[in-house]
């Protein structure tokens, strides 16, 4: 490679220093006048100055979040590590992220929410549907069916005309009542907030669930009915509640509301969390955790967050 002439290098260095001075906010009027004089004094100076402006423009034209996550990825320079990792490890999170974020069924659904989004949709028959984060449903009102493709929904049916929620693990029929259904890969949790709801698991007899009861439907059938507190606020009110909950469990829940990657050190798993947190600002939840627990939040970008145990001050 040819190395640039010494005077060009000199001009570039000076341009870089001028720019840094201007951006620092510490430039005086005198500095500005000097800069102008420097630019005017030589063509190579003005040329270097223009190149520097063009460089800034190249960055300014980028979408910030995407560019930040790509250019500030962990250890771009660690080739040796990368070579080892790229074979398997580095490919897994990307594939996992994509499968996690873009399952095909979601796009075909009538209604869906992105990660972190919640939505309330009044239906034509007077019922109200609410969707939690990263959820999708197909609504077919003429045949009184709502198919929960993925994620979590609640349905309030004020009238006597029933609506049937179809899940991969059974059917839930709601009339004059309100129920919440959360579907995961291995099962589906049905919680009833008011009225009574009919359930038909994939296997076994139909059952009726009343207000304050919840049950897990699995491939093998319904598990035991449990009680829960209908008055405790939840995602429908935009709140994430924890009462002496293991931090790992809490973070897995929180993660489902955040786009990107949230990771934490295994030692943090067993810490306990208590509190009620607003879901509309999950960054703030992380900040609150850092303020109340012995942990640190490292935010490379909004999309790449790692929690580590706080270092002891010597």
């Amino acid at each position, binding site marked *: 490679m040819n190395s640039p002439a010494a005077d060009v290098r000199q001009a570039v260095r000076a341009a870089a220093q001028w720019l*840094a001075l201007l951006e620092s906010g*510490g430039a005086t009027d005198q500095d500005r006048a000097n800069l102008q004089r420097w630019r005017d004094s030589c063509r190579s100076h003005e040329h270097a100055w223009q190149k520097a402006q063009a*460089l800034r423009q190249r960055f300014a034209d980028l979408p910030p979040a995407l560019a930040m996550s790509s*250019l500030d990825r962990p250890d771009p320079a660690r080739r040796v590590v990368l070579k080892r990792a790229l074979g398997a490890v580095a490919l897994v*999170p990307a594939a996992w*992220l994509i499968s996690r*974020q873009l399952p095909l069924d979601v796009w075909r659904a009538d209604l869906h929410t992105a990660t972190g989004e919640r939505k309330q949709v009044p239906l034509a028959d007077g019922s109200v549907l609410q969707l939690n984060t990263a959820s999708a449903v197909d609504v077919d009102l003429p045949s009184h069916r709502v198919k929960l493709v993925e994620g979590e929904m609640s349905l309030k049916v004020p009238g006597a005309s029933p609506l049937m929620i179809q899940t991969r693990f059974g059917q839930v029929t709601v009339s004059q009542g309100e129920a919440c259904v959360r579907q995961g890969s291995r099962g589906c949790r049905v919680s009833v907030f008011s009225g009574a709801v009919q359930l038909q698991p994939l296997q076994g007899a139909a059952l009726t669930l009343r207000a304050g009861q919840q049950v897990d439907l699995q491939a093998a059938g319904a598990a035991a009915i449990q009680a829960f507190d209908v008055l405790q606020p939840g995602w429908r009110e935009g709140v994430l509640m924890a009462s002496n909950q293991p931090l790992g469990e809490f973070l897995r829940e929180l993660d489902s509301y955040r786009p990107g*990657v949230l990771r934490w050190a295994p030692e943090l798993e067993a810490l306990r969390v208590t509190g009620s947190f607003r879901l509309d600002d999950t960054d703030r939840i992380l900040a609150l955790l850092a303020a109340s627990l012995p942990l640190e939040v490292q935010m490379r970008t909004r999309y790449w967050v790692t929690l580590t145990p706080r270092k002891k001050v010597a």
Partner: protein
Amino acid sequence: MGNACDAADLSQDTFLRLLASSQRIADLQEPRAYLLTVGKRLVSNFYQRRSLEQAYLSALASLPEECAPSPEQRWLLLETLQALDELLDGLPRAVRRAFLWSQLEGLTYQQIAERLSVSERTIKRYMAQAYEHCLLVDL
């Protein structure tokens, strides 16, 4: 390399690089060593580009649907990011970050100084270093 297609692409790149370079092949003193050097540089570029691509795809996947760029924009953007990534290559980690925070997130030097727990003077030095580095690579 892990797979034969990548290896074939890379050796072709090596020869293209050689043909495109200003040095005449006949003038090479040590053709074998030259090929090896060019080849090695390309391999490390290859991994760097791939890691960028991975990070980019992950970030894309985590965007809400309505914010995601169109397929054409995605490729243009990836190419731009790859060029800038090469431009930034070789800068120390902290300098690179400070620079990206300033350029992309519009943070002030004072905010960056707080984030990195260093003085504003240091940030000013970092920024001058980053500008100089990028401008020199681009000459």
